[in-house]
């Protein structure tokens, strides 16, 4: 579904991604883990056509997303929940959700999707008229995910959804992702929480300083001494 091929991204003279390749198949949950500054967010931003790419290609359902405007990529079915959630604090919860459906023209189907989002996150329905900045961090994360779902994505990309949240709230976020996976949603999840990602994902990539260091199923990686030493020891 999503194919990243030899992707190189530069920020000025800094090489953020040094030619990574990665694949996400339909219906799969793919996790990407790695330390800060490994290039995880850069990879997602490039896939959303939000930053320029130096070399390589990113194809979604066979066609490149490079040179597309970001709004076109959303229309094609890729939604990104960026790091730090980026909800609109001064807009109400309802307005934030409405913005999620910016590219949609099928009002009836949008209404169905809203109902589904409220089923997933009942709390959002209660706060519809509240400025989103007043929500707690966990509620904001739910709003950010709900907002992304209203675009009816076929690929949902999440950038560190657990960042800055209390452990119980993180549980809730991962439960939601599990629920989404059961509906057949294709998910590309970037995380620092290695253990939780291994529990959820079908396949995992390990990204470090702009290169993919390891890749495989959670079972493969869990048995890999190199991986265990690097990650599971201290998370």
């Amino acid at each position, binding site marked *: 579904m999503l194919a990243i091929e030899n992707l190189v991204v530069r920020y000025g003279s800094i090489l953020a991604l040094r030619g990574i390749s990665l694949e996400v198949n339909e219906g799969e949950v793919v996790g990407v883990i790695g330390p800060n500054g490994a290039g995880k967010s850069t990879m997602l931003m490039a896939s*959303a056509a*939000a930053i320029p790419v130096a070399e390589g290609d990113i194809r979604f359902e066979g066609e490149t997303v490079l040179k597309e*405007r*970001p*709004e076109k990529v*959303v*229309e094609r079915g890729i*939604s*990104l929940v*960026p790091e730090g959630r*980026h909800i*609109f*604090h*001064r*807009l109400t919860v309802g*307005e934030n959700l*409405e*913005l*999620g459906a*910016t*590219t949609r023209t099928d009002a009836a189907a949008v209404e169905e999707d809203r109902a589904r989002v409220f089923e997933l996150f009942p709390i959002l329905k209660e706060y519809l008229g509240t400025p989103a*900045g*007043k*929500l*707690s*961090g966990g509620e*904001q994360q739910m709003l950010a995910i709900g*907002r992304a779902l209203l*675009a009816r994505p076929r690929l949902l990309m999440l950038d560190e959804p657990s960042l*800055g*949240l*209390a452990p119980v709230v993180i549980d809730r976020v991962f439960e939601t992702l599990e629920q989404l996976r059961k509906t057949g949603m294709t998910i590309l999840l970037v995380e620092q929480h290695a253990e939780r990602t291994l529990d959820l994902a079908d396949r995992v990539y390990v990204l470090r300083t702009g290169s993919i260091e390891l890749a495989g199923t959670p079972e493969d990686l869990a048995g890999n001494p190199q991986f265990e030493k690097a990650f599971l020891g201290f998370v």
Partner: protein
Amino acid sequence: MDPSEVAQNAIDAAARGSFLALVALGVALLFGIMNLVNFAYGEVILAGGYAMLIFTTWFLDASVWPLLIIWTVVVAIVFALAQERLAFRPVRHADPTTMLVTSFAVSVLLVNIAIVVWSGLARPVEIGGVTLEQFTAGEIRIRKLDVITLGAAAFLLLSLTAFLKRTSLGIQMRAASEDFRMSQLLGVPANRVIATAFFIAGILAGSVALITVGNQGSSSPGMGLFPLIFGLVAVVLGGMTSLIGAVVGGFVLGGLIVGLEQGLATYGMERFRDAFVFLAVIVMLVFRPQGLVVGRAIRERV
């Protein structure tokens, strides 16, 4: 001060404030969406002013004022959109300094075109007696133009608020001004929100041009500069990040100007009004650097 004098000053301050609020809104709208202080915004006002001159000398006289208003606002909108399309869109992804220098260049270019075509002197615009007419109630004199200014400002503020709150394009505008990158990630087209911001700024600039020419009875190459500088100060006062802040800043600045005019006149120092205005603004910013209204940087609860 006796009550009628207080009332008189309040009316003057409200008229001055609403004028500045209109300019400040235009400046703040573009700053919010593009992070650009557009110094060429004054020249959109200038374009409106000379559009009025052209209308009254070549086409019709000012007695067909509804047509004059439409014409002026349309010319201002066209100029604002042309600035966006020709000058700012090509440098949108450049760094802010480049955009700032571009806005200076556009400003200088347009002022000089006005000087070449109409000379550097103020050209009288025949707009009839509206500038002189006034209502009197006891000792209070109310200029008709002040009433028009207040009415126009109220109408534009309410329309803009309704647009931003009630329409989906308005919600997209507010989203883009809070977090432009995120609005793009949700599929809000950058070109559409930016062009809309310039369109609205054009309407505001056209209105400001009508009021300015109504006040001074002429168009001049420098006519965009005074509103722009004071509008910018109003935006800074208001905190840079919210449209409400810009409006509040405009009214505070209007009150400050009228108050200082009154206060300084008793010492024969009214010529130094602007120096005192800016001094007051600096003092305020020392004690409240975030401005009067805090917008974007709301701390998030975790």
